[in-house]
């Protein structure tokens, strides 16, 4: 198993490099003088000189890539001119808040989605199935940012159950109760779409599995129906559900951008949008590479989980 994890980690290296290449190439599409583009409104002559020196912007494209990559490997993601702060510090602060939000949503969507999918499949065409199918359809059709706004109207403004917004930075204090109180609405709003997708997929994966011969074998053995569904069938269905959970983690991270805007959550998504609007290119670049790299590592964890579940995968 350790060998397999090492192997997967090793195979992530080219992917990580690929990510940096893609981000670099996209950023190289910016028209005009790169120094001016990167600095935007902060293009004082000193700043231009500094950035030309730091990033080797006079050098050819390939050389620039390696300078950039080399800097990143030493933890230097550049400086945000709009915030006047090292990019990496800002990203780390913001990412912890995003991780809290997205992580909670991810757990919610996995548990609720799989449970809903299994029940829906086991009671195919029954009332539970119809109810869940409709709820799922509504869930995947509603824009998460609209849902978040409506939740604010109902649960914060009308019912006053939860605060509208105002989550402090994760390190800002306030204690567990305060954080949890702020977390409930955004986490649910963010989880809704992903829960719908997971439920849908779990349902069809379960239906597929329930038709398999080995389910008939289990029934022919006299195994109780509850165990047939939640044991034999779900276990086999997890083989196709787990990769989807990996993809959904990406969707939750993506959806977090909208939810952070709606709930004023101090996460990395809001940081990126602000940075784009302020044309703080280095902050965008650093944020994207950092989050994408974390996502790659998460997907390795998903692969490892898959190999633990399925003995047919060669480890």
């Amino acid at each position, binding site marked *: 198993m350790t060998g397999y994890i090492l192997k997967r980690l090793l195979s992530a290296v080219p992917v990580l490099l690929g990510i940096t290449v893609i981000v670099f190439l996209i950023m190289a599409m910016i028209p005009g003088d790169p120094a001016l583009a990167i600095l935007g409104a902060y293009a004082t002559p000193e700043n231009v000189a500094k950035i030309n020196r730091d990033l080797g912007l006079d050098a050819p494209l390939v050389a620039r890539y390696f300078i950039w990559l080399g800097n990143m490997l030493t933890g230097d993601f550049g400086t945000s001119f709009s915030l006047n702060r090292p990019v990496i510090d800002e990203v780390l602060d913001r990412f912890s808040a995003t991780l809290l939000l997205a992580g909670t949503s991810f757990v919610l969507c996995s548990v609720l989605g799989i449970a809903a999918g299994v029940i829906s499949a086991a009671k195919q065409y029954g009332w539970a199935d119809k109810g869940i199918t409709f709820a799922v359809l509504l869930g995947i059709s509603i824009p998460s940012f609209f849902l978040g706004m409506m939740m604010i*109207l109902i649960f914060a403004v009308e019912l006053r159950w939860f605060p509208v917004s105002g989550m402090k930075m994760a390190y800002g204090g306030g204690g567990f109760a305060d954080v949890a109180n702020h977390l409930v609405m955004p986490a649910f709003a963010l989880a809704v779409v992903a829960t719908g997708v997971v439920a849908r997929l779990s349902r069809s994966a379960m239906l597929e599995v329930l038709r398999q011969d080995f389910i008939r074998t289990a029934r022919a053995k006299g195994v109780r129906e509850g165990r047939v569904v939640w044991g034999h069938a779900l276990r086999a269905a997890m083989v196709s559900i787990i990769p989807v959970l990996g993809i959904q983690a990406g969707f939750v991270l993506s959806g977090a951008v909208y939810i952070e805007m709606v709930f004023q959550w101090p996460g990395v998504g809001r940081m990126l949008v602000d940075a784009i609007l302020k044309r703080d290119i280095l902050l965008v670049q650093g944020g994207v590479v950092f989050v994408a790299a974390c996502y790659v590592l998460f997907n390795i964890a998903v692969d490892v989980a898959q190999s633990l579940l399925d003995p047919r995968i060669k480890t």
Partner: protein
Amino acid sequence: MQFLSLLLRNRLAAAGGVVLSLVLLLALVTPLLPLANPDVTDTANRFLMPGEQGHWLGTDHLGRDLLARLLHGTRLSLAVGFAAAFFAAFFGAAIGIIAGYFGGRTDNLIMRGVDMLMAFPYILLALAIVAALGPGLTNALIAVAAVNVPFFARNIRGVTVGLAHKEFVDAARLAGLGHTRIILTEILPNVIPVIVIAMSTTIGWMILETAGLSFLGLGSQPPQADLGSMLGEARGALITNPHTSVVPGAMILVIVMSINLLGDGVRDALDPRLRSGALTRPMPATRVERKGTIPAEGEGGAVLNLRQLQTQFHVKNRIYKAVGGVDLKVAPGECLGVIGESGSGKSVTALSVMGLVASPPGVITGGAVYFQGQDLVGAPYERLRALRGDKVAYIFQDPLATLHPLYKVGDQLVEAIRVHHPVSRSEARARAVALLKQVRIPNAESRIDSYPHEMSGGMRQRVGIAMALANDPEVIIADEPTTALDVTVQAQILSLLDDLRRERGLAIIFITHDFGVVAQLCDRVAVMYAGRIVETGPTAAVLRAPAHPYTSRLIACVPELGGGRRRLEAIPGLPPAVDRLEPGCAFAPRCLKASAACREGDIALEGPGARAVRCIHPEAELEEGVA
């Protein structure tokens, strides 16, 4: 045509289609409607409520008419969403088909690139693209289309790889077609439904995505507004004037929901598996709808006695009479062979005994199954379950598909024991090892921790047999247990089964299509054709002097080893479809001896002693066979 009617039959999809058409129509005629200019500001009249001063939906924070902005915004959102879906599908499909068809290094290179793109949470890529190109609706469209290309490419590639290895592609190659022609005429027509399904299920998603970018202020720029940026602008006044937010938000919801409803309908209508009902879940026990009187068991002596059993498949308006009144019985220690071609109903008969016929579409519509004198048809599920695997056990055909791929074989054996007997895990495990030894699996102690895929076909079938033996059942029903195996392995499994039944006095019902197997293993044989037994009797007697023309001609058309080169006696025609059975003998259309009487009413299964035949013109006078 069939597609449209299927789509319309789906009420939800039709409703989605109607709503979407209305929205589309409204979007198309928007420029012709007498609406206020959506971009003219009138700050004096900001935040009017719906209905005030002739503004049907009120005004926004700059006093612009919300209805006009809504309709123009809808137009824009739809156009961008559809365009993004089209471009993503086009480029994604092209990449996927090329990678999937050519395979090898081309595939490897392309898919590595796709994997790279998919390694991003998609919005990061979209944000990076917008960051580089600058905010704007066109750039948002490019970003959304670009991040969706990998999804299409991967999906279409998977389908293409499957198709590229299909035999009809090989056949086209042998017919002289080149690569381009094969892609265009063989692959593409089979991929298009998948592309359509993928598009119809993702358009809604793309509309959400472009609206999302606009919501963030990265899409359409003021004063132009799509639904997303309307919502984004309204956010500031969410608490004071919620209607400005609700209007565009609800519109997005309506559009996306109707597209998703329609998309699901399109998918259901195009996917052949959904169409054939292959994705319905079988219930824990076959549905029973018994009409008419329940036949009595009659004379005893049999451990399992099937009386006038009828099982049908109800598929849409058709009724397939898979089993049309079968009488079978098996005594302790006896091996009964049931022989027939595919579609003869032999397997369905076997599965009906314990209610294991998949339902839907299977329904047991008549007859009785007496196990030790008690009728099992219509018995409560819990009673059936208690008997399954404990008193009546099954061995199935394909040992790879019938064992759970993710459980160790030992755990599957232990479960079989513990579900009926409250013994400890270690006790059950010891028993499992003993069972594996009984079925002559070498190194049983270590093999018990193997997964099914780590064993050969023969070893897996031995596990299947061990599982059937786990609770010392009274009856074993073996449904073509050796058909998937090689001939040398088959011989071993058959001899194992033969030894076991003699040692344990098991009653076995052995389903097969092979006369050689029946002859070697079974005491009695029943021949099935079109859901009914046409002849039965002691194996040796039936094989020596078959009485039903079908039996005798079936025996004649199977070549037997050692006969040298020869011409076979083929039976002309095809077995009948069991949803359109004519009255009388089902074999009559293929039978040389058929007379008018054969096509008139029911013919009884009659004969002296153990032998019986369902024929007016039997090949031979029945001699009373001795079992």
